[in-house]
Structure formats: structure tokens, C-alpha cells
């Protein structure tokens, strides 16, 4: 393409760090849009991006989180499209981004398939992943969509609870709408204005969701649930204590679903959880919430 300038949006900062890393490696100019609210709660990743030579642009408009960072990145892109490539971070946004991101993330599912055959000699029974925009879940699910014996479960952020006005459970509570150039489920009010999402985890704090998830839900191929901030925090602590792994707050939502799921399963059911990220970036948020 010959483009020398790269832009991206980021919520938790994971995608920002990844983008900054490749830009450093290949000598490209890198600009990352991030909401002011997320810059506060994900300071470790902000530091990593800067260390890698990226410019982190603070977005103060709207709710100052992922939705607004994405809007700003799209505005930059339409302004500088002749010189700039936009690396969108989730399976959201205008076509063909949902497809591009899904196909790249599908390495997760391919690898899972291979390892399952090695470990169990068969397909897994259940795949479990958290859903913000939906990329880690879509990447895991994609190679299994046609394997109908495999249950696909996505877990959204219920924030303070899906019956409050503070959550990010788009598939559970949303209605059909358009955000960032794609039609999908959306948290919106009666006039079609996009509503604020809320989650303790920056990466799930998004009022939209990738269109393919809405489709999988529509055709009944995937199931979607949600867990609250508190349930995610409890799960994070448990995984640390039992497994010696500090999962990201986003990932902790997937773990928390086990609490509801496992009592309904038969013994020896094989579940694969996508460990989408590590929790180093979240230690400040977790410390203040858990009073450690």
C-alpha cells in the first residue's frame, strides 16, 4: 500500500500496544486514539505504547471511552486515508473490517482445534470467550461455526447489572442499530441515540458489538450471557489463587461464567476458555476494588 502512517483505536490498550509494537518493528509512524477515561484506568499500557514510540491521542468527547476513540480514529482515517492505514482493533466497524479482523484472529480457533485433538483426541464440547467488540470470541469461534457439536458461548459485561443503566451487555439488551458503519445490536435510546456503556473493564466498555455475533445469536448458533463487575472481580481473584494466572478483567468475565455454566454440565465436559489477556494492566483497578 505504501502507507507510512498507522492509526488505531484502543480501549484496554492491548490493541494499542500490539499496533505500536509492529509500527516500531517496521519503522512506521503510529497514532493511537484512546478515551481519557481509559487512559486513566489502563496507565500501564499507555506507558508501553509511548515507550514503543507511539503517539497516544486523548479523546475527551462523548463518554471518553472506546466508542469515542473509535469515532475519532474513523474521523482521522477519512481525513488522511490517502497516506494512512487504519488497523481496527475488533470485529466491528465498516465492512470489510469485521471480516479482516475475524480472519486474522481465527489463528486462535485453528490453534485451539489442533491442541484439542492432541489433548482429547476430539473437538472440544464448549468454547467460552468474553465479548466486547467480539474479536477474541469471533477468532476462537470461527473455525468451529460449522462444527455444530461444539457449543459457542460469549460473555458480555453486565457492569452493575443488566437491569440497571450501567452495563455493556449489547447482545443481551440491545436492539438493531448502526454504529461505526455496521448494522448490529446496539445499546440505544428510543430516539436512536447511542447510549453509554459501563464496565469495570475498559475492553468490554462498548455499546456496540461485531455484526457477526448478532448473526450467530440470530440463527441460534452461539449463546450469549453476561456477568457483573463484581462477578468478574471474584473470578479474577479465584483464578489467581487456584491457577497462578492473573487474567485481564475482560478475560475474567469469561471465567466468571463457569460458575453458572458448570453446574449444568456432565462430568468430563471439555471446555476451552480463551485467555484473551493478562491482568498486569488491571492491577490498579483491581486493587482499589478488592481493597487488597
Amino acid at each position, binding site marked *: 500500500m505504501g502507507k507510512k502512517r498507522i492509526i488505531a483505536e484502543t480501549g484496554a490498550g492491548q490493541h494499542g500496544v500490539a499496533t505500536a509494537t509492529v509500527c516500531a518493528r517496521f519503522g512506521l509512524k503510529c497514532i493511537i486514539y484512546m478515551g481519557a477515561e481509559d487512559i486513566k484506568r489502563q496507565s500501564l499500557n499507555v506507558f508501553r505504547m509511548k515507550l514503543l514510540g507511539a503517539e497516544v491521542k486523548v479523546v475527551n468527547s462523548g463518554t471518553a471511552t472506546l466508542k469515542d476513540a473509535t469515532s475519532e480514529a474513523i474521523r482521522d482515517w477519512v*481525513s488522511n486515508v*490517502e497516506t494512512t492505514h487504519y488497523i481496527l482493533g475488533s470485529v466491528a466497524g465498516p465492512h470489510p473490517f469485521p471480516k479482516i479482523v475475524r480472519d486474522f484472529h481465527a489463528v486462535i480457533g485453528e490453534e485451539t482445534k489442533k491442541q484439542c485433538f492432541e489433548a482429547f483426541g476430539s473437538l472440544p464440547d464448549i468454547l467460552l470467550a468474553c465479548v466486547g467488540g467480539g474479536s477474541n470470541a469471533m477468532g476462537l469461534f470461527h473455525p468451529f461455526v460449522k462444527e455444530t457439536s461444539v457449543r459457542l458461548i460469549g460473555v458480555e459485561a453486565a457492569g452493575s447489572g443488566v437491569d440497571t443503566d450501567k452495563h455493556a451487555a449489547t447482545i443481551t439488551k440491545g436492539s438493531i442499530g448502526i454504529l461505526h*458503519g455496521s448494522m448490529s445490536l446496539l445499546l440505544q435510546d428510543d430516539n436512536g441515540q447511542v447510549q453509554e456503556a459501563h464496565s469495570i473493564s475498559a475492553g468490554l466498555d462498548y455499546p456496540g458489538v461485531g455484526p457477526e455475533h448478532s448473526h450467530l445469536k440470530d440463527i441460534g448458533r452461539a449463546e450469549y450471557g453476561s456477568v457483573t463487575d463484581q462477578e468478574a472481580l471474584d473470578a479474577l481473584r479465584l483464578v489467581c489463587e487456584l491457577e497462578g494466572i492473573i487474567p485481564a478483567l475482560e478475560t475474567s468475565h469469561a471465567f466468571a461464567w463457569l460458575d453458572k455454566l458448570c453446574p449444568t454440565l456432565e462430568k468430563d465436559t471439555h471446555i476451552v476458555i480463551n485467555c484473551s489477556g493478562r491482568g498486569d494492566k488491571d492491577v490498579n483497578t483491581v486493587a482499589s476494588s478488592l481493597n487488597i
Partner: protein
Amino acid sequence: MKDNKVQITKNKSLSKVDEKFCELKNNKKLALMPFIMAGDPNIEITSEILLKLQENGADLIELGIPYSDPLADGPVIQVAASRALKSGTSPRKVIKLLESLKGRLNIPIILFSYLNPLLCFGFEKFCEIASNAGVSGLIVPDLPLEEAYKFSKIVSNHSMDLILLVAPTTPFERMKQISNHTKGFTYLVSVTGVTGERNKMENRVENLIAKLKDVNRNPIAVGFGISTPEHVNKVREWGADGVIIGSAFVKRISSSSKKDVVDYVGEFCKEMRLAADQKE
């Protein structure tokens, strides 16, 4: 303004926007089309501003319906949309306002709205009440051409025009398709980017206007970034049929007190009218 090869005369099948452009063409005038955000700072003041713009030389008015996530807009119009939402503006209220101005506001009104509020309202239902309120056209900046065909039919069925946009980066083949499917006029976005005042007009706009003129005889209105009399002069010299001026108006609305805003905006409209009418 460059001479038109064929003079278009009034005809029953012409829309209100078509008729307006015919009339202007026959008088060799450049269409002046201010953009303001409905409900900024409140719906009563919007009502007064609309009448004042008509009085002070606007030929058509583009009226924005506020949206929470205006992707095609720069900071000035983003903030205007937030103010309008805070003042309780909804699509229904905008239509009510226009109903209340029927008989007094006679120039064509074109509503500018992102797609989601219209879908949420019910697109067909919205077209029906908009048409009844006297609206002449619709601009939906986030509606891609591929989706536009079916929406355009609905809009036309309700005696309004769906106006499509062309950008400097639009490939020529696509430009042709857009130009052949737009109604009323072709909206030429003069910059790669979002709305907002610019210091300079990009010179390539001249070329874009020429290219569009090669495709068909649609009127061409140039918008995004136009904010000074010099810009307006350029657009006329380059042979376009209209100018759309947004952020420059909206900025004046946000920077004046509720008491002075109508006159202040009115003065700016007069100034732009003079620029539009200047003869080479």
C-alpha cells in the same frame, strides 16, 4: 457562472429542489445553502434563525437532526449536536418545528441526519411525516451507495429527494454511479475529512467539479470547509451551482448570546449572499 448548454425549464415532474436550481440557473445565481443544527441552542431559536436565513438570502437550508455519534463531523458540529440533544431535540420535534413554520418558511428545507435515528423512527414513517411537514430532501452521510438505492425510492415516493455525496477520494466509476443516482443535486465534499472550517480550498475541487460535469447535468453543490467569501468566490468561479456552509454558521450560533444570535447569524448570511452574487 459558466453558461449552461441547455436551459432547463419548469416541469411538473421536477422536485422542489430541482425547481429551485432551475430558477437559480436561469438567473445565473449560485445557490446559497446554510447548514444549522436543529435545537442548537434550542428549538425556538432554530425557528427564528430559519426565517432569518430565508429573509437574508438563503436559497435552501440544510437542517441537521442531532445524533450522539456524528462520524462525518468535526468538533464544531459535534458540540452543536450535543447541545441540541441536551435541549431535548428529537426527529419528531424537528418535524413539529417545520410544521409550525408552514406557509412562512418557503425555501426548500433539506434534512441532514445520520441513518440510525431515522431507522429507529422507522424510515418510511419518517419520510411520510417529513414530507407532510414540507421537507424537500434528505442527506444521510453514513448511507453508502450500495444501500442508497432502496432508500432513495422510498424518499422519492414521498416527493422528496435523497441527495448523495461524492468525496475527493471517490473513484471515477463510483462517482458516476453516485452522480446518476442522486436526486436534486450532487453534494461534492470538498475535502478528504470531516466538517469544519478550513483556511484554504483544495485546488483539486476545480477538477472534481469538471469531472462531475462530464458525467451529467446535475447541479453540483460544494460543502465541507467552506467558510469565507473567498471560498464562495472560488466555488462559483470553478463552475459549481451551489455552496453549503455549515461550521461557519454553527460557530457563530455557539459563540453568541441567545439575545443576539439571530441577528448575528443573519448578518453572516447577508455577507455570504453578497459573495455568492459577486460577478466576475
